[in-house]
């Protein structure tokens, strides 16, 4: 976590106020970084778990695959940006194969889906370990250094990450609300049998939506790769948090996704400053349970799908 004291740019501000301001803004930006990642990972889970009732325990591996895609491209001499372009493609390929080979045969058997995707998750983790070897993989950010934001100094790459995540989310909102395919998805989500009845190939729509969610998770993995420890097991953390996001935020709307991400990401970032990460994680889980108890249908409820 970046923590900086006073910089020469703001010498006129009193040190006490400056420290407070620095702290607030840095915490805010840290939270925003985590929230951005959680939103992207949660988006795919909101599609599969929230809307298609598929509990995909291999969703975290889409993140891992995305991060490894960036590592692989960089290790072959490619740029970070090329790797970042490859990340969603890698996620989509794995997601598409998973949907086609396993999930589509188990739509009516939710418990089997849990077991099957857990197995796939382990296979992917071990497969990555066998292919790339043990140990954390180095990924270098495209831009080193910091940006002076008057009140605080913040790593430039994190700001780029936040920007890309927001643009991606905006793109998804536009895709779902404005395009013909988005209309198909909303139709299938609301009433699958009737969607089929008006001539929509719902099986295909599901497959595309699932693949799309995997691609976005892959992108999240690519974005987070320079900040995180890139390991075959890294997806597990994102999986748990993404489930919190979807369950706390409420199923079926972008608003719920944002609300859940802000809740989980915001709380985690603030607590991480004060206490150890594992305790912070436990408190976030506790808060999530309380939130779900108080608002069983999600923090953000009744928005349009």
């Amino acid at each position: 976590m970046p923590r900086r004291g006073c910089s020469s740019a703001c010498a006129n501000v009193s040190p006490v106020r400056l420290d407070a301001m620095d702290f607030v803004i840095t915490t805010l930006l840290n939270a925003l970084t985590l929230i951005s990642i959680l939103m992207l990972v949660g988006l795919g889970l909101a599609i599969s778990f929230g809307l298609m009732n598929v509990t995909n325990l291999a969703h975290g591996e889409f993140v891992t695959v995305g991060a490894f895609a960036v590592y692989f491209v960089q290790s072959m001499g490619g740029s970070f940006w090329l790797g970042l372009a490859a990340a969603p493609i890698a996620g989509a390929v794995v997601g598409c194969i998973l949907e086609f080979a396993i999930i589509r045969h188990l739509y009516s058997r939710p418990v089997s889906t849990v077991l099957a995707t857990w197995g796939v998750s382990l296979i992917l983790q071990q497969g990555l370990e066998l292919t790339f070897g043990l140990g954390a993989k180095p990924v270098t950010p495209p831009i080193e250094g910091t940006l002076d934001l008057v009140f605080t100094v913040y790593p430039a790459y994190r700001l780029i990450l936040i920007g890309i995540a927001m643009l991606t989310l905006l793109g998804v909102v536009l895709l779902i609300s404005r395009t013909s395919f988005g209309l198909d998805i909303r139709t299938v989500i609301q009433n699958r049998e009737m969607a089929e009845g008006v001539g929509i190939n719902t099986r295909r729509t599901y497959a595309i939506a699932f693949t799309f969610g995997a691609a976005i998770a892959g992108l999240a993995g690519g974005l987070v790769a320079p900040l995180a420890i890139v390991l075959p097991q890294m997806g597990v953390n994102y999986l748990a948090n993404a489930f919190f996001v979807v369950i706390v935020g409420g199923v079926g709307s972008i608003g719920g996704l944002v609300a859940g991400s802000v809740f989980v990401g915001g709380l985690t970032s603030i607590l991480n400053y004060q206490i150890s990460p594992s305790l912070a994680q436990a408190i976030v889980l506790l808060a999530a349970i309380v939130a779900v108890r108080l608002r069983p249908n999600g923090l953000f409820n009744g928005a349009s799908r």
Partner: protein
Amino acid sequence: MLRTLAVSAGYGLLPVLNGIDLSVAPGEVVGLLGRNGAGKTTLLRVIAGALRASGGAVVLGDKDLTNAPAFRRARAGIAHVPQGRGIFNQLTVRQNLEVGTRAAKDRGDSGIPADIFGYFPILREREAQIAGTLSGGQQQMLAIGRALCGLPSVLLLDEPSEGIQPNIVQSIAELVPRIARERGIAIVLVEQNLDLVLKASDRCLVMEKGRIVHEGAPEAFADETLLKDLLAL
């Protein structure tokens, strides 16, 4: 021409349809009568592909659709307006109609046909309204209008009068035969409201325990003793 040949179907081990032979010509309205549980709704679901036939065949023109999934049947020209109407509640009226055009995709979809609004002017007025906020009667009109957006050759209507105020039932009774004639659509009408079904149909069939047990012109059903006998009214 829609035909079912010795169609049988059921839910799990429970048989509901026992060899149904039905044929409906373009422009014809066939009314299906029968007590609750006779299999009327199930027959429509089997024709639409929402439920698989366990035997027999569903044929549209020269195409055997028995094993086709529901969306292929919709694209082939079979439109189903189910019980409860199946409106997409969170979409606008216009979006519902737009989704309805998906069925015409393979047959030269040219958007929402303008004459739909001739049958249902209210849909034009309410174009931007969220469909879930429409009244029951308006939703029924939307459901039929949406079905017509797919340029169907067969229209399956399941209890269009359910939960609808009487004056709208009246206008549906007038519209159904008009739509069949003007667009050359074969219509199968399942209905509990006898006035509606006798007024709108060219021919009526009575179902009992998964079979067709009686067939006749609507006038023949005006005889109350026959109705009592067949429908236990």
